[in-house]
């Protein structure tokens, strides 16, 4: 009996030792490094409301995502982009736009259509990122030169950095967390230029092919004097084509008129000249497409080289203007997989390949230029975004429900809110519009950046 009591007492003691605060808890939530502030340079992916003025503000937009907090509907619908999630986790003040305004269509009478709001610089805001911003070229997509009705400032990253340095006396204190991400708009603008030029080249070639086919077709119908007819018709087409305001219809009219004048009255009947015109149109389409594709193929490599230059330029900026001026914690996000965005996927296969080459060259130059530095954290968003879109298993683990459909439909994400998304639950979609993430995808980006910060010893 004595032993029994002894054993019981011991076992009870063991059980009692387990008493007192045995539950789980969050533990110490502080991070070892206390950053003094977050300073952000970049484009729409980091913009926290540069254009949240005028009509954009009236629409409830302002950020390049699904705008507006609707966390009661779904916790993922925060309306936040990655820089805001990062600041919240690091217990830094919510970032605000260093500059606001729009230079588009002025409409003071109707605020809902007013895209002209004077530019204001906010001295106490340190997020310089602007939608449409490029690495160093001041004209990005959305700029007043490209889209006069919208008139985004698209101040390039190079200028953003210079503005900040001027504001803080030329150097960083070393306790700021600096984030920088750009290059996407360089891809889009280069591509837009290429596309416009290729279309122009295609049109020119198409018009030539059309005229050539039309002249030879009509002349061949003149059995008595085809050579003379060809000269007359050719001259008429040339004159009409050179006339301002001429169209393919007026060119056909002039050509048929010349053919009749050369003695072939039968050709005046639509039943006769109709098929000849149709043949000419087919020839034009073929020649146009061929010329356009050829232009793109010939000039594509030049674009890839341009992006390589932009990547190297961004890297140099980080080293000399950020780290070189005292920044000790610089996060550099590389370019996500632009070819896998809805914008990229809507392009022809050859164009998608070109985008891939542009992005890869940009990232390679950026990474090589940055090198290894204790002050620079290079975050590989390309690999993550590529995996999310192209690996169904990964998509599921990331918690994404859709990686191809635009949550905002055809609305530009700058004007997209929780109230004008497409039907159904879009809270865990990857993309808000052609190129911009939803708040959920931004949250995944922030979490990935934090993971890399932890590995780097910054968290």
């Amino acid at each position, binding site marked *: 009996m004595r*032993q*029994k009591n002894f*054993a*019981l007492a*011991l*076992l*009870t*003691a*063991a*059980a009692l*030792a*387990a*008493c007192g*605060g*045995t*539950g*789980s*808890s*969050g*533990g*110490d*939530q*502080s*991070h070892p490094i206390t950053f003094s502030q977050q300073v952000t340079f970049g484009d729409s992916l980091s913009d926290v409301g540069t254009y949240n003025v005028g009509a954009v503000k009236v629409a409830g937009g302002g950020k390049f995502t699904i705008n507006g907090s609707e966390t009661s509907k779904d916790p993922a619908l925060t309306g*936040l982009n990655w820089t*805001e*999630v*990062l600041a*919240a*986790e690091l217990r830094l003040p919510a970032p605000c736009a260093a500059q606001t305004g729009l230079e588009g269509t002025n409409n003071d009478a109707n605020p809902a259509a007013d895209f002209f709001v004077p530019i204001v610089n906010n001295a106490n805001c340190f997020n310089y990122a602007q939608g449409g911003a490029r690495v160093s070229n001041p004209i990005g997509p959305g700029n007043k030169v490209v889209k006069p009705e919208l008139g985004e400032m698209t101040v390039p990253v190079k200028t953003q950095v210079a503005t900040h340095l001027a504001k803080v006396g030329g150097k960083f204190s070393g306790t700021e967390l600096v984030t920088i991400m750009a290059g996407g708009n360089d891809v889009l603008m280069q591509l837009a230029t290429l596309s416009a030029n290729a279309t122009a080249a295609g049109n020119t070639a198409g018009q030539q092919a059309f005229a050539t086919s039309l002249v030879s077709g009509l002349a061949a119908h003149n059995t008595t004097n085809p050579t003379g007819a060809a000269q007359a018709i050719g001259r008429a087409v040339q004159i009409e084509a050179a006339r301002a305001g001429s169209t393919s219809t007026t060119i056909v009219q002039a050509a048929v008129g010349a053919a009749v004048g050369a003695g072939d009255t039968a050709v005046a009947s639509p039943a006769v000249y109709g098929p000849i015109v149709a043949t000419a149109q087919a020839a034009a389409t073929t020649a146009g497409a061929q010329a356009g594709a050829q232009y793109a193929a010939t000039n594509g490599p030049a674009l890839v080289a341009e992006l390589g230059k932009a990547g190297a330029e961004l890297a140099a900026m980080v080293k000399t203007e950020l780290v070189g001026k005292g920044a000790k914690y610089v996060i550099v996000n590389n370019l996500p997989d632009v070819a896998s965005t809805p914008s990229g996927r809507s392009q022809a296969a050859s164009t998608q390949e070109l985008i891939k080459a542009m992005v890869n060259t940009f990232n390679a130059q950026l990474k090589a230029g940055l090198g290894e530095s204790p002050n620079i954290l290079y975050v590989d968003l390309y690999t993550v975004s590529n*995996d999310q879109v192209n*690996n169904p*298993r*990964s998509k*599921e*683990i*990331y*918690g994404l429900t859709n990686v191809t459909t635009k949550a905002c439909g055809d609305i530009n994400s700058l004007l997209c809110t929780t109230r004008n998304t497409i039907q159904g639950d879009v809270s865990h979609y990857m993309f808000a519009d052609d190129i911009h993430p939803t708040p959920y995808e931004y*949250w*995944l980006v*922030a*979490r*990935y950046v*934090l*993971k890399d*910060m*932890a*590995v780097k010893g910054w*968290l």
Partner: protein
Amino acid sequence: MKVRLNSVVKMAVAAAALACASGASAQSAGQWTAKFGFNQLTPKVESGDLTAPALPFTKAAVDRDIQPVLIFAYGLTNNISAEVALGTPYKHKIKGAGSIAGTGELGTVEALPPTLFLQYRFFEPTATFRPYIGLGATYAYFMKERGSGKLTALTNPGGPATTFDIDNKFTYTGQVGLAVNLNERWFVDATVNKSRLRTDVHFSSGQNQHMKLDPVAVVLAVGYKF
């Protein structure tokens, strides 16, 4: 928490009752021994992937811990004994692994693995070297699961602090050991215990993680026979 504690108490009492019930039938051959030493508990972790929403292939590693132990054994016969250990909880650091390798310590947990062994001891009680084998019933009890700012950042950035709970498990443990009798009362003892332990971790941020822990315990102790 009450539920858990109750189950531990019940288990402890049940274990005690079992020990005494067996003991009563072999009281005449009975001898109590106590040994004091150190136990190094090393989980042999095979981590499952953290479930959605997570970075694919997010895994965890668990560090070993060393704690003092007090072990009591009772001779049911000259060759068969029952053994139970008492000790302070093992505090394990949980670190990021897999795709989050290098993130460092994300949390800690304290574990108590009370085990009741039934052992077979070779040779005569007077022999100098007495190897033994044992099989035990183990209750793996996890408590004081502590997260960290880093854990929150990696699971729910910008959100409330992430907490986690590890399921307690009944399981079994195999044992091999060697007692070396120094004299009639004192002996030294080395033991290796290997448990089968598969459990699940539940995070407040919604994810789960299956963990194969299969800990190996190495105990070096000095003992005294009463």
